[in-house]
């Protein structure tokens, strides 16, 4: 390879954006959706506004955890019962309660630095075939804002409204292709 450079697109997940922590859809129509209807049961959200961070949400009916659900991030059914523990500096770690899904128990942990999510770990996966077959396919999208701070990602490919060959020259995809990384 010619000088393996990396374009690192530094991004920041801001408070005003909804960050979905965990949740995998399936490659078929069978998903983790439970009695909550058309929304996936195992999704999490952290939402904040201005100052302070709110982690709230609802868990499936048979559980009282803080793994939140709903795409708007403002679900109010159920109460957040996850444990929150401080870590180094201003970092905070929030552990969601175990949520029961049709594929088995799921538990996530979120590390926050102030209002910024620094890491999301899945502490517990279902052990059933559901996980093996389907969870590995893709994670949920994370809303980001490109800034020069905090969270980063090394993006491989850009999905955007159909580029024509003319529009391609100015696109981020073109920059990635030319960088050859």
């Amino acid at each position: 390879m010619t000088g393996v450079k990396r374009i690192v697109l530094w991004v920041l997940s801001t408070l005003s954006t909804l960050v979905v922590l965990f949740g995998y859809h399936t490659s078929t129509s069978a998903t983790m959706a439970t009695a909550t209807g058309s929304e996936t049961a195992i999704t999490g959200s952290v939402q904040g506004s201005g100052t302070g961070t709110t982690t709230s949400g609802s868990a499936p009916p048979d559980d009282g955890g803080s793994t939140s659900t709903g795409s708007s991030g403002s679900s109010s059914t159920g109460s957040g019962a996850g444990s929150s523990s401080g870590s180094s500096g201003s970092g905070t770690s929030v552990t969601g309660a175990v949520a029961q899904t049709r594929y088995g128990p799921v538990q996530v942990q979120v590390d926050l630095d102030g209002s910024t999510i620094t890491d999301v770990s899945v502490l517990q996966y279902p052990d059933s075939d559901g996980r093996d077959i389907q969870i590995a396919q893709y994670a949920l999208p994370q809303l980001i804002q490109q800034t020069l701070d905090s969270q980063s990602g090394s993006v491989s490919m850009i999905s955007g409204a159909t580029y024509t060959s003319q529009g391609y020259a100015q696109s981020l995809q073109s920059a990635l292709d030319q960088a050859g990384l």
Partner: protein
Amino acid sequence: MSTAAPAVARRVEHVMGMPVSLALRGRHASGPEADAAWDAALAELRWVDEVFSTWRPDSQVSRLGRGEVTVDECDPAVAEVLRLGDAARASSGGAFDILLPGPDGVRRLEPSGVVKGWAVDRAVRPLLALADTDVCLSVGGDMVCHVADDAGEPWLVGIEHPLDPTRLVAQVPVRRAAVATSGTAHRGAHVVDARTGGPAEAVASVTVIGADLTSVDIDATTALALGLDGPQWLRSRLRTGVVVWADGRAEVVV
């Protein structure tokens, strides 16, 4: 969580008036096997363009649209695409249609909303046959991703901000799935609500992630055409994606 990513070999060609970008990493990231698979992928895309392009007066679809040939006289792939279009019209309540009303109110055969994703699903096959090789093939911003190792480093797909294509609005780690974005960037409001023929304007872009590009491309276009109803429609189909509204607000759909 992330380790140093392996080297990525990239290739770009232009087919169907769109850039075709390929990223490979792993055993056959470069070399004769990769060259052959890339050539085969491009050949497939060029064949699809010859058959389906509405810009080519002599394509089978152009001739079909003018009534010069019947579906039975076309390649069987044409009937397959028309069936996909019919299914999409039914599931979208008519918002998606491959018979689009023009300014004069006359409906014309315009199957490109179906063809693109379908073509990439076909074109990527020889690349997926490369052993121990990760593949990400994008045509004009819609892509199929594949990671050879079940637990391998996912491709990180950036989702372009529709109002500022120099920025990203979201990112999604993908191992084996397709990502399609429909929006108004780059070509203006080229998606129309087939129910009215008017441009789809409430939503700036819709990205859908799912198992195959044929269906997620159709669903992204449909959700864009549905406008305000798009996100709920995606949820009703248990889709995962990102909607960016015309004012720039972004929403994850799950």
